[in-house]
């Protein structure tokens, strides 16, 4: 025992050296991205924290001017992108394109049971309650309330939302609803019995209510089940719109004639 202690005492500097080097190398292999690709594991949280701390400290000295330049450039590119995407979309629009208003999403949520989206256009731009809102990838929702410059949109991800849809292959109709939970999936209900929906079928808008133009994409069938009675089919739909990343949307201001709206109201 005594000899062991003597030996340990004698090589204590070597041990310390090895310990420090071991710590360094653990840090090296754990945190660094380049070395991570050579080794295996990742510690993204820590390296992210380190980078944030670093940019927080050094940014104080360096990045003020760069940030401003980047923000300016970003705004310039963004407006250009909007303009280009807009013209691209207008060109591909199935109907006459004049009755679409482009709006930017300024607030959005997907985590509640009743989510809402706020867009930066309102009644001054011709937006009114009940108008359809969609993005290039598909249906987003329906305008719920609008002030002069802003509108509140009831997205598909709201338990009050109900949109008339059609299974394109079969021409059978139903209502798309959402019961909370995963923001990527909704349910198509009130389908005719024996509708024969299959996985992969495309769901599009029906065009009945004239809220949306006909054949705007909504989603793809990802599961077919039956409701509580065990007879009526209920279809799970994977939505085409990624509500997480809504940048800008189109509002369909080409609504039904007042006469039809009046008639529809009488139904309720």
């Amino acid at each position, binding site marked *: 025992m005594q000899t062991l202690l003597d030996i340990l005492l004698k090589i204590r500097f070597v041990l310390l050296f090895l310990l420090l080097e071991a710590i360094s190398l653990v840090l090296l292999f754990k945190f*660094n991205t380049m070395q991570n690709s*050579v080794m295996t594991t990742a510690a993204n949280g820590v390296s992210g924290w380190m980078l944030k701390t670093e940019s927080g400290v*050094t940014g104080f000295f360096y990045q003020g001017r760069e940030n401003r330049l980047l923000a300016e450039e970003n705004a310039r590119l963004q407006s250009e992108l909007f303009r280009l995407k807009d013209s691209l979309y207008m060109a591909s629009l199935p109907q006459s394109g004049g009755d679409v208003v482009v709006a930017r999403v300024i607030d959005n949520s997907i985590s509640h049971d009743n989510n809402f989206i706020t867009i930066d256009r309102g009644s001054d731009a011709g937006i009114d309650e009940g108008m359809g809102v969609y993005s290039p990838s598909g249906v987003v929702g329906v305008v719920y309330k609008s002030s002069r410059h802003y509108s509140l949109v009831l997205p598909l991800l709201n338990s009050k939302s109900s949109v008339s849809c059609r299974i394109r292959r079969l021409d059978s109709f139903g209502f798309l609803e959402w019961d909370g939970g995963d923001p990527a999936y909704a349910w198509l209900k009130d389908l005719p019995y024996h509708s024969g929906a299959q996985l992969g079928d495309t769901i599009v808008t029906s065009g009945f209510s004239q809220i949306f133009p006909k054949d705007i994409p909504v989603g793809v069938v990802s599961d077919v089940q039956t409701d509580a009675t065990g007879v009526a089919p209920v279809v799970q739909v994977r939505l085409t719109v990624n509500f997480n990343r809504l940048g800008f949307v189109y509002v369909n201001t080409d609504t039904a004639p007042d006469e039809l709206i009046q008639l529809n109201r009488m139904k309720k």
Partner: protein
Amino acid sequence: MVIDFLRKLLIVIPVLLLQVLVLDRIHLFGYATPYLFIFLILISDVKTNPAERMLWAFAMGLVTDLFSSTPGMHAASATLLAAIQPWLLGLFVSMDRREQFVPGLESMNSRQYFLFLTVGTLVHHIVYFILKTFSFQDWSVLILRIGASTLLTVVLMAVCEYVFRVKKRRRR
């Protein structure tokens, strides 16, 4: 002891600030980046407890790592340099490790001294750049980097030597 620690801290902090805020961002000709903070390791007193020297080097390396997002690389190479510093110095000058001996122009002749600085820097830079690149595929670039950076570091060390250490001595 505490006073001594604080006095060292008073030198270490400005040097580290200079390193992480200015020198780390220099990429002269795309290859040369000076790592001046190892100067403090190289000119440490030989009599210093090896554990103390290694811990200082490790801490300085770690701080530099933290700011240049190169975790562990500086810490590893600086600790290694601290561990071999007395032995390395023994190659160039005969001295007794139990007695105080601070490497510098005062205690050594300039040829010995700068050769010592160059070899020490070279060793550190070789280890550091190998850890940083972590491959020998681009070995010509690696060698160029090590050579250019060593040159720049040693030049900066010489500047520091004449500006801070020689002047101080004359004032005395």
